[in-house]
Protein backbone atom coordinates (compact mmCIF):
# COMPACT_ATOMS: atom_id res chain seq x y z
CA UNK A 1 0.00 0.00 0.00
CA UNK A 2 1.28 3.48 -0.84
CA UNK A 3 1.93 5.30 2.37
CA UNK A 4 0.36 8.71 2.84
CA UNK A 5 3.81 10.23 3.16
CA UNK A 6 4.51 9.32 -0.47
CA UNK A 7 1.63 11.42 -1.81
CA UNK A 8 3.08 14.78 -2.85
CA UNK A 9 1.04 17.31 -0.91
CA UNK A 10 2.08 20.94 -0.51
CA UNK A 11 0.50 22.63 2.47
CA UNK A 12 0.10 26.38 2.19
CA UNK A 13 -0.21 28.99 4.85
CA UNK A 14 -1.29 27.58 8.13
CA UNK A 15 1.82 25.54 8.97
CA UNK A 16 3.39 28.75 10.29
CA UNK A 17 0.46 29.49 12.58
CA UNK A 18 0.96 28.78 16.28
CA UNK A 19 -2.32 27.35 17.52
CA UNK A 20 -1.12 27.63 21.09
CA UNK A 21 -1.92 24.01 21.96
CA UNK A 22 1.66 22.85 22.58
CA UNK A 23 2.79 25.09 25.39
CA UNK A 24 0.36 23.80 28.07
CA UNK A 25 2.03 20.38 27.73
CA UNK A 26 5.25 21.91 29.04
CA UNK A 27 3.43 22.83 32.24
CA UNK A 28 2.30 19.23 32.56
CA UNK A 29 5.86 17.99 32.00
CA UNK A 30 7.07 20.39 34.69
CA UNK A 31 4.63 18.95 37.24
CA UNK A 32 5.63 15.43 36.26
CA UNK A 33 9.35 16.14 36.65
CA UNK A 34 8.80 17.69 40.06
CA UNK A 35 6.75 14.64 41.09
CA UNK A 36 9.46 12.26 39.87
CA UNK A 37 12.02 14.14 41.98
CA UNK A 38 9.83 14.32 45.08
CA UNK A 39 8.33 10.87 45.18
CA UNK A 40 9.95 8.86 42.39
CA UNK A 41 6.56 8.52 40.71
CA UNK A 42 6.78 8.28 36.91
CA UNK A 43 4.28 9.83 34.49
CA UNK A 44 3.22 9.09 30.94
CA UNK A 45 1.55 11.65 28.73
CA UNK A 46 -0.33 10.47 25.65
CA UNK A 47 0.42 13.09 22.99
CA UNK A 48 -2.10 11.42 20.69
CA UNK A 49 -4.87 12.57 23.04
CA UNK A 50 -3.91 16.25 22.69
CA UNK A 51 -5.86 18.59 20.42
CA UNK A 52 -2.84 19.46 18.31
CA UNK A 53 -3.16 21.50 15.14
CA UNK A 54 -0.66 21.36 12.29
CA UNK A 55 2.79 22.20 13.61
CA UNK A 56 1.86 21.99 17.32
CA UNK A 57 3.57 18.64 17.84
CA UNK A 58 6.74 19.80 16.10
CA UNK A 59 6.74 22.99 18.13
CA UNK A 60 6.55 20.95 21.35
CA UNK A 61 9.32 18.61 20.22
CA UNK A 62 11.50 21.58 19.24
CA UNK A 63 11.04 23.04 22.69
CA UNK A 64 11.91 19.75 24.32
CA UNK A 65 15.02 19.28 22.17
CA UNK A 66 17.19 16.16 21.91
CA UNK A 67 19.22 14.58 24.69
CA UNK A 68 22.06 12.09 24.80
CA UNK A 69 20.26 8.78 24.67
CA UNK A 70 18.30 7.10 21.96
CA UNK A 71 17.19 3.51 21.81
CA UNK A 72 15.12 1.32 19.61
CA UNK A 73 13.14 -1.81 20.47
CA UNK A 74 12.02 -4.44 17.98
CA UNK A 75 8.83 -6.00 19.31
CA UNK A 76 5.57 -5.93 17.33
CA UNK A 77 7.24 -3.40 15.05
CA UNK A 78 9.81 -0.83 16.16
CA UNK A 79 9.53 1.49 19.15
CA UNK A 80 11.83 4.51 19.10
CA UNK A 81 12.89 6.14 22.31
CA UNK A 82 14.67 9.48 22.40
CA UNK A 83 15.70 11.34 25.52
CA UNK A 84 14.81 15.01 25.25
CA UNK A 85 17.15 17.79 26.30
CA UNK A 86 15.44 17.57 29.69
CA UNK A 87 16.99 14.56 31.43
CA UNK A 88 14.36 12.06 32.41
CA UNK A 89 11.85 13.27 29.82
CA UNK A 90 11.63 10.66 27.09
CA UNK A 91 9.81 10.69 23.80
CA UNK A 92 8.47 7.21 23.09
CA UNK A 93 7.13 6.58 19.59
CA UNK A 94 5.36 3.26 19.04
CA UNK A 95 5.31 2.16 15.39
CA UNK A 96 3.72 -0.82 13.67
CA UNK A 97 5.57 -3.20 11.39
CA UNK A 98 4.99 -0.78 8.47
CA UNK A 99 6.66 1.97 10.52
CA UNK A 100 3.40 3.85 10.94
CA UNK A 101 2.88 5.48 14.29
CA UNK A 102 0.38 3.83 16.59
CA UNK A 103 1.02 5.95 19.66
CA UNK A 104 3.28 8.78 20.84
CA UNK A 105 3.96 9.21 24.53
CA UNK A 106 6.14 11.36 26.72
CA UNK A 107 7.52 9.37 29.63
CA UNK A 108 8.89 11.13 32.65
CA UNK A 109 11.00 8.54 34.42
CA UNK A 110 14.61 7.60 35.05
CA UNK A 111 14.39 4.84 32.43
CA UNK A 112 11.41 4.34 30.08
CA UNK A 113 9.33 1.36 31.09
CA UNK A 114 9.69 -0.53 27.84
CA UNK A 115 13.48 -0.57 28.16
CA UNK A 116 13.39 -2.44 31.47
CA UNK A 117 13.46 -6.21 31.12
CA UNK A 118 10.16 -7.70 32.38
CA UNK A 119 10.69 -9.83 35.53
CA UNK A 120 9.18 -12.91 33.87
CA UNK A 121 11.77 -12.52 31.12
CA UNK A 122 14.54 -12.49 33.76
CA UNK A 123 13.17 -15.76 35.11
CA UNK A 124 12.95 -17.23 31.61
CA UNK A 125 16.49 -16.00 30.90
CA UNK A 126 17.83 -17.71 34.02
CA UNK A 127 16.15 -20.99 33.08
CA UNK A 128 17.46 -20.71 29.54
CA UNK A 129 21.00 -20.06 30.74
CA UNK A 130 20.85 -23.03 33.14
CA UNK A 131 19.70 -25.25 30.29
CA UNK A 132 22.53 -24.06 28.06
CA UNK A 133 25.10 -24.57 30.81
CA UNK A 134 23.82 -28.08 31.42
CA UNK A 135 23.99 -28.73 27.71
CA UNK A 136 27.52 -27.29 27.51
CA UNK A 137 28.63 -29.48 30.42
CA UNK A 138 27.32 -32.54 28.62
CA UNK A 139 29.36 -31.64 25.53
CA UNK A 140 32.54 -30.68 27.38
CA UNK A 141 35.48 -32.38 25.49
CA UNK A 142 37.37 -32.72 28.79
CA UNK A 143 34.49 -34.78 30.19
CA UNK A 144 32.17 -34.07 33.14
CA UNK A 145 33.44 -32.14 36.13
CA UNK A 146 35.29 -34.24 38.71
CA UNK A 147 32.79 -33.78 41.55
Amino acid sequence: MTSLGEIPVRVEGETQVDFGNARPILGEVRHALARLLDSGEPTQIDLGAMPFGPGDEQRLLDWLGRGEVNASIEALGPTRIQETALRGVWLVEYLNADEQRIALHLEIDEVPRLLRAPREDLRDGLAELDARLADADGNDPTGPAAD
Partner: protein
Amino acid sequence: MVKSSATDTAPGSSNETTHPTPSAPEHRGPDTMTLGESLRRNGVSRRGFLKFCAATASMMALPPSMALAIAEALEQARRPSVIWLSFQECTGCTEALTRSFSPTVENLILDTISLDYHHTLQAAAGDAAEHAREQAMHANAGSYLVVVDGSLPGPKANPGYSTIAGISNYDMLMDTVKGAAAVVAVGTCATFGGLPKADPNPSGAVAVQDLIKGKPVINVSGCPPMPMVITGVLAQYLTFGKLPELDEYNRPLAFFGQSIHDRCYRRPFYDKGLFAESFDDEGAKKGWCLYRLGCKGPMTYNACATMKWNGGTSWPVESGAPCLGCSEPNFWDAGGFYEALSVPPGKSGDTLLAAGVAGAAVGAGVGLMARGKAKSAAKSHQTVTVDELEQQL
Protein backbone atom coordinates in the same frame (compact mmCIF):
# COMPACT_ATOMS: atom_id res chain seq x y z
CA MET B 1 -1.74 13.48 32.80
CA VAL B 2 -2.08 10.67 35.14
CA LYS B 3 0.42 8.82 37.23
CA SER B 4 1.79 5.45 36.47
CA SER B 5 2.33 2.88 39.12
CA ALA B 6 2.89 -0.82 39.25
CA THR B 7 0.01 -1.19 41.69
CA ASP B 8 -2.68 -0.17 39.21
CA THR B 9 -5.45 -2.67 39.11
CA ALA B 10 -7.97 -3.36 36.41
CA PRO B 11 -11.32 -1.69 37.03
CA GLY B 12 -13.10 -4.91 36.14
CA SER B 13 -11.91 -7.91 38.09
CA SER B 14 -12.28 -11.29 36.48
CA ASN B 15 -15.28 -11.92 38.78
CA GLU B 16 -17.24 -9.20 37.07
CA THR B 17 -16.59 -10.46 33.61
CA THR B 18 -19.42 -11.67 31.48
CA HIS B 19 -17.17 -14.07 29.59
CA PRO B 20 -17.79 -17.76 30.20
CA THR B 21 -15.25 -19.60 32.34
CA PRO B 22 -12.25 -20.66 30.26
CA SER B 23 -11.46 -24.33 29.95
CA ALA B 24 -8.14 -25.81 31.04
CA PRO B 25 -5.25 -24.21 29.12
CA GLU B 26 -3.88 -27.41 27.61
CA HIS B 27 -7.20 -28.17 25.91
CA ARG B 28 -7.70 -24.72 24.52
CA GLY B 29 -8.36 -24.29 20.86
CA PRO B 30 -8.03 -20.91 19.21
CA ASP B 31 -11.54 -19.94 20.34
CA THR B 32 -10.92 -20.61 24.02
CA MET B 33 -7.42 -19.20 24.39
CA THR B 34 -6.94 -16.05 26.40
CA LEU B 35 -5.72 -13.05 24.48
CA GLY B 36 -2.34 -13.23 26.21
CA GLU B 37 -1.90 -16.85 25.13
CA SER B 38 -3.06 -16.11 21.62
CA LEU B 39 -0.60 -13.24 21.19
CA ARG B 40 2.30 -15.21 22.66
CA ARG B 41 1.47 -18.10 20.39
CA ASN B 42 1.87 -15.66 17.52
CA GLY B 43 5.40 -14.90 18.71
CA VAL B 44 4.62 -11.62 20.47
CA SER B 45 7.18 -11.01 23.26
CA ARG B 46 6.34 -9.55 26.67
CA ARG B 47 7.69 -6.18 25.59
CA GLY B 48 5.58 -6.45 22.44
CA PHE B 49 2.58 -7.26 24.61
CA LEU B 50 3.24 -4.23 26.82
CA LYS B 51 3.52 -2.07 23.73
CA PHE B 52 0.23 -3.51 22.50
CA CYS B 53 -1.31 -2.60 25.86
CA ALA B 54 0.07 0.96 25.73
CA ALA B 55 -1.44 1.44 22.28
CA THR B 56 -4.69 -0.19 23.42
CA ALA B 57 -4.90 2.27 26.32
CA SER B 58 -4.60 5.13 23.82
CA MET B 59 -7.24 3.47 21.67
CA MET B 60 -9.62 3.16 24.60
CA ALA B 61 -8.99 6.82 25.44
CA LEU B 62 -7.55 5.70 28.78
CA PRO B 63 -4.47 7.25 30.37
CA PRO B 64 -1.20 5.45 29.44
CA SER B 65 -0.76 4.48 33.10
CA MET B 66 -3.58 1.98 32.54
CA ALA B 67 -1.34 -0.09 30.25
CA LEU B 68 -0.25 -2.36 33.10
CA ALA B 69 -3.82 -2.89 34.27
CA ILE B 70 -4.80 -3.67 30.69
CA ALA B 71 -1.92 -6.13 30.41
CA GLU B 72 -3.10 -7.93 33.55
CA ALA B 73 -6.70 -8.05 32.40
CA LEU B 74 -5.84 -9.10 28.85
CA GLU B 75 -3.76 -12.01 30.13
CA GLN B 76 -7.06 -13.46 31.34
CA ALA B 77 -9.40 -12.13 28.64
CA ARG B 78 -11.08 -14.62 26.35
CA ARG B 79 -11.85 -14.10 22.71
CA PRO B 80 -15.50 -13.17 22.55
CA SER B 81 -17.59 -14.47 19.69
CA VAL B 82 -18.88 -11.66 17.48
CA ILE B 83 -21.73 -11.88 14.99
CA TRP B 84 -21.74 -8.92 12.63
CA LEU B 85 -24.98 -8.11 10.81
CA SER B 86 -25.06 -5.66 7.90
CA PHE B 87 -28.44 -4.27 6.93
CA GLN B 88 -29.29 -1.08 5.00
CA GLU B 89 -25.80 0.35 4.77
CA CYS B 90 -23.11 1.36 2.30
CA THR B 91 -20.35 -0.87 3.78
CA GLY B 92 -18.44 2.31 4.67
CA CYS B 93 -18.29 1.24 8.32
CA THR B 94 -16.68 -2.11 7.50
CA GLU B 95 -14.38 -0.32 5.03
CA ALA B 96 -13.32 2.17 7.70
CA LEU B 97 -12.51 -0.67 10.06
CA THR B 98 -10.70 -2.99 7.69
CA ARG B 99 -8.89 -0.36 5.62
CA SER B 100 -7.16 1.11 8.62
CA PHE B 101 -3.40 0.65 8.45
CA SER B 102 -2.24 -2.87 8.94
CA PRO B 103 -0.97 -4.52 10.93
CA THR B 104 -2.29 -2.31 13.67
CA VAL B 105 -3.70 -2.65 17.10
CA GLU B 106 -7.11 -2.64 15.45
CA ASN B 107 -6.14 -5.66 13.41
CA LEU B 108 -4.75 -7.43 16.44
CA ILE B 109 -8.02 -6.85 18.24
CA LEU B 110 -9.90 -8.14 15.21
CA ASP B 111 -7.62 -11.17 15.12
CA THR B 112 -8.29 -11.86 18.73
CA ILE B 113 -12.05 -11.67 18.56
CA SER B 114 -13.77 -14.61 17.00
CA LEU B 115 -15.64 -13.01 14.13
CA ASP B 116 -18.03 -15.87 13.45
CA TYR B 117 -20.32 -14.20 10.96
CA HIS B 118 -19.89 -11.13 8.77
CA HIS B 119 -21.75 -10.97 5.45
CA THR B 120 -19.08 -8.96 3.71
CA LEU B 121 -15.94 -10.54 5.08
CA GLN B 122 -16.79 -14.21 5.41
CA ALA B 123 -15.95 -16.74 2.72
CA ALA B 124 -19.08 -18.82 3.30
CA ALA B 125 -22.26 -17.87 1.46
CA GLY B 126 -25.92 -18.86 1.40
CA ASP B 127 -27.00 -21.68 3.70
CA ALA B 128 -23.46 -22.31 4.96
CA ALA B 129 -23.20 -18.67 6.11
CA GLU B 130 -26.54 -18.77 7.90
CA HIS B 131 -25.52 -22.06 9.44
CA ALA B 132 -22.33 -20.41 10.80
CA ARG B 133 -24.45 -17.72 12.42
CA GLU B 134 -26.76 -20.23 14.06
CA GLN B 135 -23.83 -22.31 15.24
CA ALA B 136 -22.09 -19.29 16.80
CA MET B 137 -25.35 -18.32 18.53
CA HIS B 138 -25.80 -21.80 19.89
CA ALA B 139 -22.19 -22.37 21.00
CA ASN B 140 -21.89 -18.99 22.73
CA ALA B 141 -25.45 -18.50 23.96
CA GLY B 142 -25.67 -15.61 26.40
CA SER B 143 -22.13 -14.37 25.82
CA TYR B 144 -21.68 -13.33 22.19
CA LEU B 145 -21.70 -9.76 20.92
CA VAL B 146 -23.87 -8.69 18.01
CA VAL B 147 -22.44 -5.84 15.94
CA VAL B 148 -24.89 -4.22 13.53
CA ASP B 149 -24.16 -1.76 10.76
CA GLY B 150 -27.03 -0.28 8.80
CA SER B 151 -30.60 0.60 9.69
CA LEU B 152 -33.45 -1.76 8.89
CA PRO B 153 -37.09 -1.57 7.78
CA GLY B 154 -39.16 -1.43 10.98
CA PRO B 155 -41.75 -4.07 11.94
CA LYS B 156 -44.54 -2.16 10.17
CA ALA B 157 -42.57 -1.49 6.98
CA ASN B 158 -42.43 -3.70 3.92
CA PRO B 159 -39.75 -6.28 4.86
CA GLY B 160 -38.95 -6.71 1.17
CA TYR B 161 -36.83 -3.56 1.19
CA SER B 162 -33.98 -5.49 2.77
CA THR B 163 -33.62 -9.22 3.21
CA ILE B 164 -30.73 -11.67 3.54
CA ALA B 165 -31.10 -15.32 2.52
CA GLY B 166 -34.86 -14.70 2.36
CA ILE B 167 -34.93 -13.55 5.99
CA SER B 168 -36.12 -10.01 6.68
CA ASN B 169 -33.60 -7.78 8.47
CA TYR B 170 -36.08 -7.39 11.31
CA ASP B 171 -36.47 -11.14 11.86
CA MET B 172 -32.73 -11.73 11.60
CA LEU B 173 -31.94 -9.02 14.14
CA MET B 174 -34.56 -10.12 16.65
CA ASP B 175 -33.56 -13.77 16.31
CA THR B 176 -29.83 -13.06 16.61
CA VAL B 177 -29.98 -10.74 19.63
CA LYS B 178 -32.02 -13.19 21.71
CA GLY B 179 -28.92 -14.94 23.09
CA ALA B 180 -26.54 -11.96 22.88
CA ALA B 181 -24.77 -10.36 25.84
CA ALA B 182 -25.00 -6.95 24.18
CA VAL B 183 -25.55 -5.23 20.86
CA VAL B 184 -23.10 -2.75 19.36
CA ALA B 185 -24.68 -0.52 16.72
CA VAL B 186 -21.90 0.71 14.46
CA GLY B 187 -22.31 3.78 12.26
CA THR B 188 -24.98 6.45 12.14
CA CYS B 189 -27.43 4.26 10.14
CA ALA B 190 -27.51 1.58 12.84
CA THR B 191 -27.44 4.06 15.71
CA PHE B 192 -29.88 6.71 14.52
CA GLY B 193 -31.32 5.54 11.18
CA GLY B 194 -28.84 7.44 9.02
CA LEU B 195 -29.25 8.11 5.31
CA PRO B 196 -31.84 5.36 4.71
CA LYS B 197 -34.04 7.16 7.24
CA ALA B 198 -33.65 10.53 5.47
CA ASP B 199 -36.93 12.19 4.65
CA PRO B 200 -39.21 10.78 3.22
CA ASN B 201 -37.76 7.47 4.52
CA PRO B 202 -39.13 5.24 1.77
CA SER B 203 -38.13 1.94 3.39
CA GLY B 204 -39.51 2.76 6.85
CA ALA B 205 -35.97 2.59 8.24
CA VAL B 206 -35.46 2.55 12.00
CA ALA B 207 -32.39 2.42 14.23
CA VAL B 208 -31.34 -0.67 16.13
CA GLN B 209 -32.07 0.91 19.53
CA ASP B 210 -35.68 1.51 18.44
CA LEU B 211 -36.20 -2.24 18.33
CA ILE B 212 -34.05 -3.81 21.04
CA LYS B 213 -35.53 -3.84 24.49
CA GLY B 214 -34.03 -5.47 27.56
CA LYS B 215 -30.47 -5.78 26.18
CA PRO B 216 -27.67 -3.25 26.39
CA VAL B 217 -27.23 -1.36 23.11
CA ILE B 218 -23.99 0.56 22.61
CA ASN B 219 -24.07 3.15 19.88
CA VAL B 220 -20.87 3.91 17.99
CA SER B 221 -22.12 6.64 15.69
CA GLY B 222 -20.30 8.34 12.84
CA CYS B 223 -20.55 8.21 9.07
CA PRO B 224 -18.32 6.27 9.11
CA PRO B 225 -17.43 5.83 12.78
CA MET B 226 -13.76 6.11 13.73
CA PRO B 227 -12.12 2.67 13.34
CA MET B 228 -10.27 3.17 16.63
CA VAL B 229 -13.58 3.80 18.39
CA ILE B 230 -15.16 0.61 17.00
CA THR B 231 -12.19 -1.47 18.10
CA GLY B 232 -11.85 0.56 21.29
CA VAL B 233 -15.33 -0.56 22.34
CA LEU B 234 -14.56 -4.17 21.42
CA ALA B 235 -11.21 -3.89 23.23
CA GLN B 236 -12.93 -2.56 26.33
CA TYR B 237 -15.30 -5.52 26.38
CA LEU B 238 -12.44 -7.87 25.67
CA THR B 239 -10.25 -6.36 28.38
CA PHE B 240 -12.58 -5.72 31.25
CA GLY B 241 -15.46 -8.01 30.28
CA LYS B 242 -17.97 -5.25 30.81
CA LEU B 243 -19.63 -2.58 28.79
CA PRO B 244 -18.48 1.04 28.77
CA GLU B 245 -20.18 3.99 30.43
CA LEU B 246 -22.63 5.61 27.99
CA ASP B 247 -24.01 9.07 27.24
CA GLU B 248 -27.68 10.03 26.70
CA TYR B 249 -27.56 8.51 23.19
CA ASN B 250 -25.95 5.29 24.47
CA ARG B 251 -22.55 6.25 23.07
CA PRO B 252 -19.40 5.38 25.03
CA LEU B 253 -18.45 8.44 27.07
CA ALA B 254 -14.75 7.77 26.67
CA PHE B 255 -15.02 8.70 22.98
CA PHE B 256 -18.19 10.80 22.82
CA GLY B 257 -17.86 12.66 26.12
CA GLN B 258 -16.52 15.88 24.64
CA SER B 259 -17.63 17.94 21.67
CA ILE B 260 -15.47 18.41 18.60
CA HIS B 261 -15.53 22.12 19.43
CA ASP B 262 -14.12 21.53 22.93
CA ARG B 263 -11.15 19.60 21.56
CA CYS B 264 -10.64 21.54 18.33
CA TYR B 265 -7.23 23.08 17.78
CA ARG B 266 -8.92 26.03 16.02
CA ARG B 267 -10.85 26.86 19.17
CA PRO B 268 -8.55 29.75 20.19
CA PHE B 269 -9.64 31.51 16.98
CA TYR B 270 -13.31 30.91 17.73
CA ASP B 271 -12.77 32.39 21.18
CA LYS B 272 -11.19 35.49 19.61
CA GLY B 273 -13.94 35.81 16.99
CA LEU B 274 -11.61 35.08 14.07
CA PHE B 275 -13.52 33.19 11.36
CA ALA B 276 -12.82 32.08 7.81
CA GLU B 277 -15.51 33.61 5.61
CA SER B 278 -14.91 31.46 2.55
CA PHE B 279 -12.88 28.37 1.80
CA ASP B 280 -9.98 30.28 0.25
CA ASP B 281 -9.81 33.63 2.02
CA GLU B 282 -6.95 34.80 4.22
CA GLY B 283 -8.69 33.51 7.34
CA ALA B 284 -8.97 30.02 5.84
CA LYS B 285 -5.28 30.09 4.94
CA LYS B 286 -4.37 31.17 8.45
CA GLY B 287 -6.36 28.29 9.90
CA TRP B 288 -9.11 30.36 11.53
CA CYS B 289 -12.34 28.89 12.88
CA LEU B 290 -14.74 27.35 10.32
CA TYR B 291 -17.91 28.16 12.24
CA ARG B 292 -19.23 30.56 9.62
CA LEU B 293 -18.65 27.97 6.91
CA GLY B 294 -21.09 25.65 8.64
CA CYS B 295 -18.94 23.83 11.15
CA LYS B 296 -21.15 21.62 13.35
CA GLY B 297 -18.31 21.04 15.84
CA PRO B 298 -20.16 22.78 18.71
CA MET B 299 -23.06 20.29 18.59
CA THR B 300 -21.08 17.19 17.62
CA TYR B 301 -19.66 14.64 20.02
CA ASN B 302 -16.90 12.42 18.63
CA ALA B 303 -13.18 11.73 18.96
CA CYS B 304 -11.97 13.02 15.55
CA ALA B 305 -10.23 16.12 16.98
CA THR B 306 -7.70 14.05 18.92
CA MET B 307 -7.67 10.55 17.39
CA LYS B 308 -7.82 11.90 13.83
CA TRP B 309 -8.15 9.84 10.65
CA ASN B 310 -5.89 7.86 8.33
CA GLY B 311 -3.43 6.75 10.95
CA GLY B 312 -3.50 10.08 12.76
CA THR B 313 -2.75 12.10 9.61
CA SER B 314 -5.55 14.63 9.74
CA TRP B 315 -9.29 15.15 10.23
CA PRO B 316 -11.91 17.25 8.43
CA VAL B 317 -11.35 20.54 10.28
CA GLU B 318 -7.56 20.17 9.91
CA SER B 319 -8.11 19.72 6.17
CA GLY B 320 -10.09 22.96 6.09
CA ALA B 321 -13.57 21.43 5.90
CA PRO B 322 -16.24 22.17 8.50
CA CYS B 323 -17.41 19.27 10.65
CA LEU B 324 -20.67 17.87 9.23
CA GLY B 325 -21.81 16.51 12.57
CA CYS B 326 -22.01 12.96 11.20
CA SER B 327 -22.13 11.30 14.61
CA GLU B 328 -25.25 13.17 15.72
CA PRO B 329 -28.89 12.05 15.34
CA ASN B 330 -30.58 13.49 12.28
CA PHE B 331 -27.45 15.08 10.81
CA TRP B 332 -28.68 14.07 7.36
CA ASP B 333 -31.85 16.19 7.57
CA ALA B 334 -30.54 19.01 9.73
CA GLY B 335 -30.20 21.71 7.06
CA GLY B 336 -27.28 22.62 4.80
CA PHE B 337 -23.84 21.33 5.66
CA TYR B 338 -22.34 24.73 4.87
CA GLU B 339 -24.87 26.82 6.77
CA ALA B 340 -23.57 28.33 9.99
CA LEU B 341 -25.24 26.88 13.04
CA SER B 342 -27.04 29.75 14.72
CA VAL B 343 -27.74 31.89 11.69
CA PRO B 344 -31.30 31.64 10.38
CA PRO B 345 -31.19 30.99 6.60
CA GLY B 346 -31.16 34.23 4.60
CA LYS B 347 -29.92 36.47 7.40
CA SER B 348 -26.46 37.97 7.62
CA GLY B 349 -23.87 36.66 10.03
CA ASP B 350 -24.50 39.25 12.79
CA THR B 351 -25.77 36.73 15.31
CA LEU B 352 -22.81 34.59 14.56
CA LEU B 353 -20.28 37.35 14.97
CA ALA B 354 -21.78 38.15 18.36
CA ALA B 355 -21.49 34.48 19.23
CA GLY B 356 -17.89 34.45 18.11
CA VAL B 357 -16.92 37.51 20.11
CA ALA B 358 -18.58 36.17 23.23
CA GLY B 359 -16.73 32.96 22.48
CA ALA B 360 -16.70 30.16 24.98
CA ALA B 361 -19.60 31.45 27.06
CA VAL B 362 -21.89 31.06 24.10
CA GLY B 363 -20.46 27.74 22.98
CA ALA B 364 -22.81 25.56 25.03
CA GLY B 365 -25.87 27.59 24.01
CA VAL B 366 -24.93 27.19 20.38
CA GLY B 367 -25.10 23.43 20.74
CA LEU B 368 -28.58 23.66 22.17
CA MET B 369 -29.77 26.08 19.51
CA ALA B 370 -28.29 23.81 16.89
CA ARG B 371 -30.23 20.83 18.13
CA GLY B 372 -33.45 22.88 18.01
CA LYS B 373 -32.62 24.03 14.53
CA ALA B 374 -31.85 20.53 13.36
CA LYS B 375 -35.30 19.48 14.49
CA SER B 376 -37.10 22.28 12.66
CA ALA B 377 -35.02 21.72 9.53
CA ALA B 378 -35.93 18.07 9.62
CA LYS B 379 -39.61 18.96 9.82
CA SER B 380 -39.59 21.30 6.87
CA HIS B 381 -37.01 19.14 5.04
CA GLN B 382 -34.98 21.89 3.40
CA THR B 383 -33.52 20.88 0.09
CA VAL B 384 -30.59 22.58 -1.53
CA THR B 385 -29.35 22.70 -5.10
CA VAL B 386 -25.73 22.95 -6.20
CA ASP B 387 -26.39 26.51 -7.48
CA GLU B 388 -27.79 27.62 -4.14
CA LEU B 389 -24.86 26.04 -2.41
CA GLU B 390 -22.39 27.90 -4.56
CA GLN B 391 -24.22 31.18 -3.99
CA GLN B 392 -24.01 30.66 -0.26
CA LEU B 393 -20.30 30.10 -0.42
